[in-house]
C-alpha cells in the first residue's frame, strides 16, 4: 500500500440551477485570452443532450480513456508506437467545429450607424479569422433542451433505452432535463497524462491536481483525445494544451476554486481523499459492473489510526490528514455512498463525483391533493428518466449503486418532509430509511451537508505549505508576482 492525497470534488446535481455562473467565473479568470476563447474548462450541459464538444461521450469517435485488455488496461487512443507514428496527424482529435467557432460582435456598427428607420445590428465576427461569420453552434447550444429533437435525442446515453422509452422522453407532458456541470476530474489514472508523448502533463504529488506544463508541451495534442471527458483543450494560438488547473493558485492561498466559490446553487464540495496509489491499476481493470465499488474501495478512511500512521510514513503531512478527516467529499462518496463517478467505464478513475439528481420530483396532484407516493424509486416506475439512463452515466451500466443512491436520497427527503410538513407517518419514513440502509442520524447529517453547510464546511481546502517549499529556491515575494498561470513571461510565440 502506498498512500497519497487527492483533492477531490462532489457536485450535487439536485441543487444545480443551470445558471452558468461557474463557467463565467472560470472564463473571466483563466480563458479570456486569445486562443482560448472556445475553451470552457468549466461547462454546464443540459442532459439529455449532446454536450460540449458535441457527443464527447462517444469514445468510438474520440477514442478517449482506457480499455480493458486481458487483466489490465490499455489506452484506447494508441499504443506507444502508434502514438509516435500518428504524431503528425492525430486521427481522433475533435475539430473546432465539434466545439464551436468563437465569435464577438462588431459593436461599432451599433454606435456608428447612420440615423435611419431600421434598428442597426451588430454583426458576429469570428474571433479566429476576424471575419464576419454566421453563428451555427455555441458552447451550450442546446441549453435547457433547446433543439431537443436534434440534441437531446442525440444524447449518447439514450442508446441504453428502448425506442418506446425514448419516445416518451419527448412527450411534452413528460419532458425532463437536468444540468451537468463538468470540469476536469483530476483523475487518478488520467488518460491525458498517459497519451502525452512528451510527458508534459503530470499529476502533482501533493494534491493530485493534473496540470499541463506550458513550457514542455510540444503541441502533439494527443492529450485532447486521450481524455474521455474532453477536458483538455488545444490553444491554437500558442500551440499548447490547456486544461482546468483546479485554481491551484487560489487554493494555495486558501481560496476555493473560482467555480466553487461562485456557485449559486452551492452544489460544489471540495475536500481531500486519501487513497491507495498501488491499487490504481487493479481498480481500473475490473469488469464494468464492479467499477463503482472498486473506485470506492480505493479510498481510505482517514480516521483509521493505522491508515493515518501509514499516510504519515508515506510523507503526507498531519495537517493534510486532518483536512481529509473533515472532507465533505469523503462523507458523500465513501460514508454515505451517495456520490458516483461520471462515466467510470473510461477507467481514468475520476475524482469528481456526482450526486445524481432526484429530479423526477415524483409527486402527483390527485384530487387536488399533493401526493408524494411511498414506494417511489424502488422500481423507478414513476421516475421520469429511467434508472438505466443514470446507470449509463454514473455507474457503467450497473443499476444497483444508482438505485441505492436514490433510495437514500428519497429517505432523506421523506424524513425532512415528515419533520417540516408532518404529513407522512413515522412508520413509512422508518421503513424507507431501513430499506435504504440508512438511519435517521445519517439522513439528518446528509440533509445538513446538502442544505445548510457553510462555505467552510463545503470547501475544506488542504493546507499546501507552499511558502515553505518555495523559500528554498525562490524569494517568496518574487514568486508571488509570477505565480499566476505558472508562466513568468507572456505566453507568446515570436515566430
Amino acid at each position: 500500500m502506498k498512500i497519497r492525497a487527492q483533492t477531490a470534488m462532489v457536485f450535487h446535481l439536485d441543487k444545480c440551477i443551470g445558471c452558468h455562473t461557474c463557467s463565467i467565473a472560470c472564463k473571466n479568470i483563466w480563458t479570456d485570452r486569445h486562443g482560448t476563447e472556445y475553451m470552457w474548462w468549466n461547462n454546464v450541459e443540459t442532459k439529455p443532450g449532446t454536450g460540449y464538444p458535441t457527443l464527447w461521450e462517444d469514445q468510438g469517435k474520440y477514442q478517449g480513456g482506457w480499455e480493458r485488455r486481458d487483466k489490465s488496461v490499455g489506452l484506447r487512443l494508441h499504443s506507444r508506437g502508434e502514438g509516435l507514428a500518428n504524431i503528425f496527424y492525430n486521427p481522433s482529435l475533435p475539430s473546432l467545429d465539434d466545439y464551436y467557432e468563437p465569435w464577438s460582435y462588431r459593436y461599432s456598427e451599433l454606435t456608428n450607424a447612420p440615423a435611419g428607420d431600421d434598428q442597426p445590428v451588430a454583426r458576429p465576427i469570428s474571433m479566429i479569422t476576424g471575419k464576419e461569420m454566421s453563428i451555427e453552434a455555441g458552447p451550450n447550444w442546446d441549453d435547457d433542451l433547446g433543439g431537443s429533437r436534434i440534441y437531446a435525442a442525440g444524447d449518447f446515453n439514450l442508446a441504453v433505452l428502448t425506442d418506446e422509452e425514448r419516445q416518451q422522453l419527448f412527450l411534452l407532458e413528460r419532458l425532463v432535463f437536468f444540468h451537468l456541470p463538468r470540469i476536469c476530474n483530476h483523475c487518478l489514472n488520467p488518460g491525458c497524462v498517459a497519451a502525452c508523448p512528451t510527458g508534459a502533463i503530470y499529476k502533482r504529488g501533493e494534491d493530485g491536481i493534473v496540470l499541463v506544463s506550458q513550457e514542455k508541451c510540444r503541441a502533439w495534442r494527443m492529450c485532447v483525445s486521450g481524455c474521455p471527458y474532453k477536458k483538455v483543450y488545444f490553444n491554437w494560438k500558442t500551440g499548447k494544451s490547456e486544461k482546468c488547473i483546479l485554481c491551484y493558485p487560489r487554493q494555495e492561498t486558501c481560496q476555493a476554486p473560482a467555480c466553487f466559490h461562485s456557485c449559486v446553487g452551492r452544489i460544489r464540495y471540495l475536500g481531500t481523499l486519501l487513497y491507495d496509489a498501488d491499487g490504481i491499476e487493479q481498480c481500473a481493470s475490473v469488469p464494468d459492473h464492479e467499477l463503482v465499488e472498486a473506485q470506492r474501495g480505493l479510498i481510505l478512511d482517514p480516521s483509521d489510526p493505522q491508515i493515518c500512521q501509514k499516510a504519515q510514513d508515506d510523507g503526507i503531512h498531519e495537517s493534510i490528514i486532518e483536512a481529509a478527516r473533515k472532507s465533505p467529499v469523503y462523507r458523500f462518496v465513501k460514508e454515505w455512498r451517495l456520490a458516483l463517478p461520471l462515466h467510470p467505464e473510461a477507467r481514468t478513475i475520476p475524482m469528481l463525483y456526482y450526486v445524481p439528481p432526484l429530479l423526477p420530483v415524483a409527486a402527483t396532484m390527485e384530487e387536488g391533493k399533493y401526493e408524494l407516493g411511498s414506494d417511489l424509486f424502488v422500481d423507478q416506475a414513476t421516475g421520469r428518466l429511467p434508472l438505466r439512463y443514470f446507470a449509463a452515466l454514473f455507474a457503467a451500466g450497473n443499476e444497483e449503486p444508482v438505485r441505492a443512491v436514490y433510495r437514500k436520497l428519497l429517505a432523506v427527503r421523506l424524513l425532512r418532509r415528515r419533520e417540516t410538513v408532518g404529513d407522512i407517518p413515522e412508520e413509512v419514513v422508518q421503513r424507507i430509511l431501513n430499506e435504504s440502509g440508512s438511519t435517521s442520524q445519517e439522513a439528518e447529517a446528509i440533509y445538513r451537508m446538502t442544505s445548510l453547510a457553510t462555505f467552510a464546511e463545503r470547501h475544506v481546502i488542504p493546507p499546501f505549505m507552499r511558502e515553505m517549499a518555495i523559500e528554498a529556491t525562490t524569494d517568496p515575494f518574487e514568486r508571488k508576482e509570477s505565480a499566476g498561470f505558472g508562466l513568468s513571461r507572456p505566453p507568446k510565440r515570436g515566430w
Partner: protein
Amino acid sequence: MADVLLFIVLPYVAISLAIFGGIYRYFNDRFSFSSLSSQLLEHRLLFWGIVPWHYGIVPVLLAHLLAIIFPNWWGVLLGGRDRLTALELVGMALGLLALIGIVILFVRRLVNARVRSVTSVMDWLLLLFLLLQVSLGAYIALTFRWGSLWYLHTAVPWLRSLTFFHPDAAPVLTLPLAVRIHMINAFVIILLFPFTRLVHIFTFPARYIARPWQLIWWRRQ
C-alpha cells in the same frame, strides 16, 4: 568569389547559426520550441498534406545524411545495378510523396482563412523555401538519373570537406544549375532553422516508448 560565398561561407554561416541559434532558442524561448499545430482549425486537407509530407521527407533526408556520414557504406549499398535501381525508385516515390504533401500544405494555408490567420511571415518563408527545395529535388531525381550515385562523388566530397574544415567547393561547381540551387537552398533552409517552426525536428518525443504511463511530480523541496 560568388562561389566561395555560396558554397563555403554560406554553409558555415548557416550551420553555426542553426546550432547556436537553436541552442539559444531552446534555453531562452523554450515555450515556442515546437511546431504550431493547426489541426484543430482544419483537419481534412491537413491529413492529405502532412502525412505524405512527413513520411516522404524524413526518409529522403535521412538518405542524404547517411550518404555523407557513411560514404563507403553507401557506395557498397549502391554497388549492384538492381539495388541502385530499386533505391532510386523508392527515393523518387518518396520524393514525389513529399512534393504532393507540401503542395497540399501550401494550398491549404492559402485557401483556409482559419489556418491563414495563424500563419506567420516565417511560416510563409519556410513553406516557400521548402516547396522550392522539394520541387528541385524531384526535378533533379527525374532528369539527372542515378543521383544517388553521382551525389556520392560530387556533393558528398564537398560536404565532407566542409565538415573537416578543408573547404573545397570544386566538386560541385560544374553541376547543373538546378542542382546548385538545390544545394544553396538547402543551406538557406538550415539558416532559417532556428527562426522557424523547423526546430520541432529536435523535439521528437522518442522517450515515450519507455516512460511510465503516469507521471507524478512532487514539488521541489
